[in-house]
């Protein structure tokens, strides 16, 4: 006897599949396709094979900006890796210690900035760091460091790092929570056995707890990578589409926006924007690929 066609499966799947396919998967593929076209002055599009990529990567008018954005994006990512994630690990480790009074309250407070819009975050920090209002200068004065105050957001050498730190300030709650969840999932018996053996808390942390949460640290790394190489909102809301001063805070997201929509006298081009998006896609894909083939495969997930 032939089974009846499983209509119910179709009904359950279709809405999600359709919306996701039409507004996410298809646009992504179509963007990869559009990257191979160029737009003429009349607005018609022609297939041009690698012309966009040649321009972005080798024509000095464009490549300088592209490589600058790429370099800045790498720095942006490194600041998150060197400060945000270790800080998240530290906070999570402290929160997960036994008998910390008020741990729940700390969690709530520390996670709060993550929920706010970057537009608000950007503006708050802009105010605090502005020489005009002088809150930062006054605060530095309390600890006798007022003469070290500088308009960090306005200087070419410091603006990118200042913005990176603002982003770290906002998003540190995410690695903190993920690591915290992994730490408290470690069964007590393992830790207790080590305590009985006479291991110090410091040693237990580095030789038992950290190795056990390596998969989570890997996940945090890849989430940071994808998030950073796709960032846009903070730079745009603090520095505008031109990512000043003189492009020192330009990252791939803002570069993509300008290629797509244009700025000042430069006209935007959908096909050139698509090419930039494709390059961003390749960067993210490379990161995710490295993660899956080299990191996740080697790290076994511990199930308790």
């Amino acid at each position: 006897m032939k089974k009846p066609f499983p209509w119910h499966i179709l009904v359950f799947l279709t809405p999600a599949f359709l919306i996701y396919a039409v507004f996410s998967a298809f646009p992504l593929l179509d963007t990869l396709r559009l990257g191979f076209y160029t737009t003429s002055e009349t607005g018609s599009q022609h297939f041009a094979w690698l012309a966009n990529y040649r321009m972005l990567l080798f024509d000095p008018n464009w490549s300088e900006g592209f490589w600058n954005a790429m370099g800045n994006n790498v720095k942006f990512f490194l600041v998150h890796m060197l400060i945000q994630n270790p800080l998240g690990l530290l906070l999570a480790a402290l929160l997960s210690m036994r008998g910390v009074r008020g741990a729940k309250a700390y969690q709530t407070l520390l996670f709060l900035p993550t929920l706010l819009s970057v537009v608000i975050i950007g503006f708050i920090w802009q105010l605090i760091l502005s020489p005009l209002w002088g809150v930062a200068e006054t605060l530095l004065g309390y600890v006798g460091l007022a003469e070290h105050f500088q308009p960090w957001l306005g200087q070419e050498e410091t603006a990118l790092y200042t913005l990176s730190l603002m982003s770290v300030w906002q998003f540190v709650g995410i690695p903190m929570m993920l690591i915290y969840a992994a730490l408290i999932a470690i069964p007590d018996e393992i830790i207790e056995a080590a305590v009985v053996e006479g291991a110090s808390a410091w040693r237990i942390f580095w030789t038992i707890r950290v190795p056990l949460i390596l998969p989570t640290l890997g996940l945090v790394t890849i989430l940071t990578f994808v998030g950073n190489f796709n960032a846009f909102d903070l730079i745009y809301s603090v520095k505008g589409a031109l990512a000043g001063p003189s492009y020192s805070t330009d990252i791939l997201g803002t570069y993509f926006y300008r290629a797509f929509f244009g700025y000042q006298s430069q006209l935007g081009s959908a096909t050139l924007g698509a090419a930039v998006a494709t390059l961003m896609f390749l960067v993210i894909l490379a990161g995710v690929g490295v993660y899956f083939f080299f990191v996740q495969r080697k790290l076994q997930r511990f199930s308790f």
Partner: protein
Amino acid sequence: MQHKVTRFAGSTFTHVILAGYSILALFPIVLIAINAFKDRASIFDSPLSLPNAESWSLIGFEKAMKNAHFFSFFGNSMIVTVTSLFFILLFGAMAAWALSEYRFRGNRWLMAFFAFGIMVPIRLGTVSILKIMVSLELVNTLTALILVYIAQGLPLAIMILSEFMQQIPKELKEAARCDGVGEFKIFFQVILPLIRPAVATVAVFTMVPIWNDLWFPLILAPGEETQTITLGVQQFIGQYATDWNAVLASLSLAVLPVLVLYMFFSRQLIRGITAGAVK
């Protein structure tokens, strides 16, 4: 004795760091809030002090409220967020159920198709999304935003929910099937109520990025009628940069919904993460 001293020192150290960082996390938000309630002179003269009888002023809020669009921004954000969320949860749960419950050809392929969307940001498809919206005549409508956000939220929702659904005991479903209950009834009347805690977790994770998004409102719906609060505040800041009272007050108002939401959901959120909903 020495042991006790080390433990005391250890816990002091813990609290100094945690409390210190909590102050750092809260300081900017508090700073905005206290200055929103001051008159202009006090904002500049003593930004760090609390408002007192002399400096207390609500002029900023009055100005922000007088801006005709402020409430419409709020309304737009509400409509977009709530509608997207409803469909992400409904369609996401339905798809998660189909993928985790039934064995059929292409099951794993479909799983991978959806999983792809977790890692690759939908933003990279913006050029084509705009093209599609232009051809559907949806530019400058809230519908455009809602459709994109549903597509953006589905992958994570499907992954988390299917993980939860796999933990539902088999006997429950088999018993219902033996009684001749249809598949749709099983899903809507047995399964959906069971996964309510997971749904709440997914809701928070999905809601925050939608509420805070700047990119798609800027590109798909920048018109005055369709601006969301995030885009509205961003432009409001630019427009009224010198009117500090109004800017600080409108910032405080824009933070408010998220704060309320967080108060409401924070326990659920933290429980959801620590229960391993996101792995």
